[in-house]
């Protein structure tokens, strides 16, 4: 009996160890590649621990001495002067503003869905959530034509608006869930005391809702930061975001793996840190509130 249990535990342990190794290997490889000098990356026998670790890949991407990160990749001339900061800066601006708008507009709508009574409320809420699930490929064509007409292609505004397509329904839906967890009596009391709906929202409920708002904002941030298709189509050079800039390493002369790894790793840190901060709510966010652990 004891031996059986021991065998069972070892079996479990081996499975978990294997899964951990498989999960971490690609990430380990990204980290190692980012600190390897150029000569140690394309060897037939891979070098697992770089003999001469270097930060030159990071320097080349963010503080280039001569030329920029795309020079060797052979990409279009107008992109030659671009450094890694452009993508990071655009990503930060687009992500923060789109998230802010989604939360602001979403709060009002979520309040109505959670607290006010009107006809067709649930149907409307569900229809709104369903728009989050539309494939971006379906709306990208008309949005591109629209942005083109307003001369917004390759501006941050185009992406800020486009990201509302998925951020807003998500934010309304999540915030509605957090609203319903706050006892209704609280705002009813406030209104009996003479507060308006907006006053009750601002003074009584909002402070209680702050954790929910932060969690929702973190998810909007991650969705926007990772988005690729809209960014690929709606930007050219000036407004390109981090993922588009990473994909530009697929130049015609072969990929510069070292700088790519350094840049890719640096740009992956913001969503990773936020995800770990919101770890407790991760499943809840990713299932639209269906699983509350």
């Amino acid at each position, binding site marked *: 009996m004891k031996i059986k249990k021991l065998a069972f535990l070892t079996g479990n342990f081996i499975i978990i160890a294997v899964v951990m190794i498989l999960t971490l290997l690609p990430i380990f490889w990204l980290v190692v590649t980012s600190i390897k000098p150029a000569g140690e990356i394309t060897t037939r026998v891979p070098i697992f621990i770089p003999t001469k670790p270097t930060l030159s890949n990071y320097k080349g991407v963010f503080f280039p001495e001569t030329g920029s990160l795309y020079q060797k990749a052979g990409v279009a001339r107008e992109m030659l002067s671009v450094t890694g900061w452009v993508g990071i800066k655009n990503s930060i601006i687009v992500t923060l503003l789109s998230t802010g708008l989604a939360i602001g507009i979403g709060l009002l709508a979520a309040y109505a869905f959670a607290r006010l009574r009107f006809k067709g409320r649930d149907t409307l809420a569900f229809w709104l959530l*369903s728009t989050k*699930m539309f494939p*971006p*490929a379906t709306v990208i064509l008309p*949005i*591109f034509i629209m942005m083109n007409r307003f001369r917004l292609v390759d501006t941050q505004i185009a992406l800020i608006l486009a990201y509302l397509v998925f951020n807003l329904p998500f934010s309304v839906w999540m915030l509605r869930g957090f609203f319903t967890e706050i006892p209704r009596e609280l705002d009813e009391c406030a209104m009996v005391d003479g507060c308006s709906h907006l006053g009750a929202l601002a003074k009584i409920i909002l402070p209680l809702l702050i954790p929910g708002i932060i969690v929702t904002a973190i998810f909007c941030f991650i969705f926007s930061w990772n988005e690729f298709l809209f960014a690929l189509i709606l930007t050219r050079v000036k407004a390109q975001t981090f993922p588009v800039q990473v994909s530009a390493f697929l130049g015609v002369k072969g990929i510069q793996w070292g700088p790519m790894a350094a840049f890719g790793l640096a740009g992956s840190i913001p969503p990773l840190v936020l995800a770990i901060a919101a770890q407790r709510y991760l499943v809840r966010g990713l299932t639209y509130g269906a699983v509350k652990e």
Partner: protein
Amino acid sequence: MRRAKFLHVWFLLPCFAVVLFLVVFPLIYSLSLSFFSWNLTMAYLGKAWVGLDNYISIFTEDERFWKTLSNTFLMVGLAVGVEFLIGIGLALLLTREIPGRKIFSVVLLVPMMIVPVVVGMVWRLLYHTSYGLLNFFLRSFHISEGIDWLGDPSVALYSIIIADIWQWTPLIFLILLGGIMSLPKEPYEAAQLDGASTSQIFIYITFPLLKNIITIALLLRTIDAFKLFDKIWVLTQGGPGLTTENIPMYIYYKAFRYFDMGYAAALSYILLIIVSTIATFLLRSLFVTTK
């Protein structure tokens, strides 16, 4: 009193103005576009009304459409299937108190949160025929002389699926683990008292209680898998030939390489119909669980 009756309108107005402008209008516009022939490379021809011609030629003449459609279904089916099997296996394994469970959950969170384009890039490096890590392992264990992971037409599709499985199995695992942890304890205690076996407990207690959450996890991943674009873009751009091209990729090529706008709009409506059919089922299960 009248003001209070229409109060919700004011709260919903900004939200629905945005949705109208960014979702409803584009959807109507692309629906109407799908009945036109409008090629920007032949802009002098302008827009010409062709009725259902785009749809008819998609379904009757377009071999590329059928190829990309079958690619899409193969990718979705295989990726989600394998992700589910590994995910539920791990979740069931980890419901017991095992040392290191917490670290394991954090580690598994990492792939999901790496930017998908970067994930594609890393796998492209791992798959490299001459200096990729995977072929190095195959060579050192004398399994094969190396596989052309992204260039071999019979392999490339599976290489993309593997990268997707690596990134998204953790999602299914975490959802199911969350689900299992929130199950009521009483039925298990009762079953143990009655002397039920582990497999009986799973089939008659865990599975029925977990059915809704399993459905949600599967549908979420399915909908997402239908939209897969970034990894394919980075790994193969749909090649070699058409072997890894899915419907979103095909729409992209039609619209932004060949500028065949009407045709691309029709394609995108077909994708929309497929995905919203699945989304309806998802919304229904979400409605049941969040009520």
